[in-house]
């Protein structure tokens, strides 16, 4: 299914396609790019896009964005995801970047934005805490003013790739007396500051993606406060809106479905009744993808005409994650007994894995994908948002 494109947009799509084919680093084509790449390897594509001027499709031209229309941004997203490229780090480019150019001051823009674009700074997100998951307004990390510094104490958790990060953007409490939402500030903290400790959390797939981040008497210059003190909740909500925009994940789901079909054909003979059962389950998911894709195109077409899509992002997040979880579950089932094996982390070249290559990451993907319906505002929270904003409940 394709957008009806103008000749110019069609030429742009071809240009993007050709650029990916010629420039995407072979080094990054590993079994599981999300876990198998070093920090340096995962930045290779980022730097290529930066040189091309395509690293930040969302950003206005004055801050280093390419100045694309909504249609072109969508084409770029579609082409890069269909080609299976590793997206640039979202925490830097789609999350904190837009917060800085929207709510930050000139000094902050000049200091941080170029380093985000170039990949020099790696950002992580300091939102969740042990006591604050979906109910983010209850964060307890405290920032107390001391001259031209804040003294920060607290415990952030589920911090993705904090082990690589140079900076963390944090929600901190700056006024204990006010209402929860009215006393939160948005603070940028240098990960090299004394008092910052990162502790790995190993998840059920064996990977090290998330971390605890402990902040003990960390001194943060007041100039690292974004916008106004106690207005951080507004900025945080703005950012969460960005986080959910490309959650439909059509390109990725389509690639994984194609792969799943090949695995089913290889693992189960056509005369086995299980073969047809699998194909019917795959067929249903394929139709789910088609329906979501058609919905995404409908929304993009509306946005291109200036119509506010409302909380469409919540719909995409819910369905996109449910679909991908379904695909990883079916893939894990398709490899049968080999689904008992799980690659050991850290990876080593001489580790033995049973069964064909295509099954080696199926188990870890299945396990890892459980996170999708939890993070970025759990799917239950997304349903609350739609219930309130669309249904008026």
């Amino acid at each position: 299914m394709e957008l009806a494109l103008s000749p110019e947009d069609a030429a742009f799509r071809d240009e993007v396609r050709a650029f990916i084919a010629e420039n995407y680093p072979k080094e990054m084509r590993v079994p599981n790019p999300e876990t198998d790449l070093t920090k340096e390897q995962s930045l290779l594509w980022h730097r290529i896009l930066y040189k091309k001027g395509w690293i930040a499709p969302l950003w206005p031209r004055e801050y280093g964005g390419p100045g694309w229309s909504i249609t072109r941004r969508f084409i770029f997203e579609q082409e890069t995801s269909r080609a299976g490229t590793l997206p640039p780090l979202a925490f830097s480019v789609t999350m904190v970047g837009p917060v800085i150019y929207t709510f930050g001051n000139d000094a902050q823009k000049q200091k941080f934005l170029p380093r985000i674009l170039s990949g020099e700074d790696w950002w992580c997100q300091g939102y969740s805490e042990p006591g604050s998951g979906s109910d983010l307004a209850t964060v307890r990390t405290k920032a107390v003013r001391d001259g031209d510094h804040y003294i920060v104490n607290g415990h952030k958790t589920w911090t993705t790739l904090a082990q690589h990060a140079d900076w963390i953007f944090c929600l901190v409490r700056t006024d204990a007396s006010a209402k929860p939402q009215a006393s939160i500030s948005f603070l940028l903290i240098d990960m090299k500051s004394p008092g910052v400790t990162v502790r790995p959390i190993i998840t059920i797939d064996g990977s090290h993606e998330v971390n605890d981040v402990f902040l003990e008497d960390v001194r943060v210059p007041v100039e690292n406060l974004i916008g106004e003190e106690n207005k951080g909740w507004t900025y945080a909500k703005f950012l969460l809106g960005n986080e959910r925009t490309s959650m439909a994940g059509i390109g990725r789901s389509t690639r994984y479905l194609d792969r799943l079909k090949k695995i089913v054909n290889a693992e189960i003979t056509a005369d086995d009744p299980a073969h047809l059962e699998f194909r019917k389950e795959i067929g249903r998911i394929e139709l789910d993808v088609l329906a979501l894709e058609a919905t995404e195109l409908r929304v993009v077409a509306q946005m291109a005409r200036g119509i506010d899509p409302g909380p469409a992002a919540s719909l995409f997040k819910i369905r996109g994650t449910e679909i991908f979880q379904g695909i990883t579950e079916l893939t894990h089932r398709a490899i049968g007994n080999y689904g008992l094996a799980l690659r050991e982390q850290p990876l080593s070249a001489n580790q033995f894995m049973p069964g064909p290559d295509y099954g080696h990451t199926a188990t870890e993907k299945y396990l890892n994908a459980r996170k999708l319906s939890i993070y970025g505002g759990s799917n239950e929270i997304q349903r609350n948002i739609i219930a309130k904003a669309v249904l008026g409940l």
Partner: protein
Amino acid sequence: MDIQFTEEQELLRSSVQRMLRDQYSFEARRKIVTGEEGWSRKQWNGFAELGLLAAPFSEESGGLGGGPLSTMIVAQEFGRHLVVEPYVETVVLAGGLIEHAGTDEQKQALISDIIAGQKIWALAWTEKGARFDLANVATAARRDGKDYILSGEKTAVIAAPWADYLIVSARTAGKRDDRAGVSLFVVDARAANLDLRSFKTIDGRRAAEIAFRDVRGELLGSEGEGVALLEACRDRAIGALCAEAVGAMAELNSATLEYSKTRKQFGVTIGSFQVLQHRMVDMFIAHQEALSLMQHLSLSLGAGESGVSRLASGVKSKIGYAGRFIADQAVQLHGGMGMTDELNVGHYFKRISSINIQFGDPAHHLLRYVQLDAAA
């Protein structure tokens, strides 16, 4: 896939909406359905005057050239109002077959009568034991001069009791199940030796079991190509039926939401319960996705894309499951009221159930979608 409707299409939609709002209330519909005939010629004439019966036909055939998108627009609104008149049967099924397969003579004679609202048609393709298989035809036709003589039985032919003419599939060669050897015939519904036993359908329509004992029929299309013609006809019918289902789903969702905001239990409106809120969000999402697929299918039908038949099956399946989910939940959330004949909710439920049977249920079409996958 930009769904920006043209001014003409918007005009069509708003005029159908206005007419149905003024003349096809749920009470008005109830009178029609419980009347002797079970349909309204007055309404039908209104459809003709408004140009709805001409909308999808090409301009050469005397139509307005609106194609599958105009069918979609009309059917969606008909679905919202549970219109019982045989629009799909007359315009989409018979009209479409005549337009695609008829001789110039047939087109001129038959389509103008449809557009003018003069004649009602029904398509008799289903047989006992054939379920949803278009090729499973035992009814036989033998040549007699320039006509054919038909013998056999058709089952559950929707709108047949109202029809002036039938299009009947019958075997001119081969054995039951052969794809080749099925042909289509135009038959006068009041012909001698045509025995028609009428019954009421769950969605307030009339259908019939029909026995043909040496009934004269006129060939429509080439001999032996009936199955291919019926397949394309089914794809177009799926486009229209899915649009009706989507219209019905929209009404069920808004009725359920409205009810949840007024109905109180335990001292609060039931819409304040999170479990029901999330259910209604899932109903909302199911409708949004169905709407997107409905548009996608209609655009593909209009563009005559290859592979549209597989797409039609996929969409029929997905919208069928979505419709069943929404209908189930709408009745459930209305509680006992949802079970009553008095409230419209149960009637939407029954319309969606009927659509889910016509031309194949969601499971049948899922299987067809999967089996037509060239990549698998």
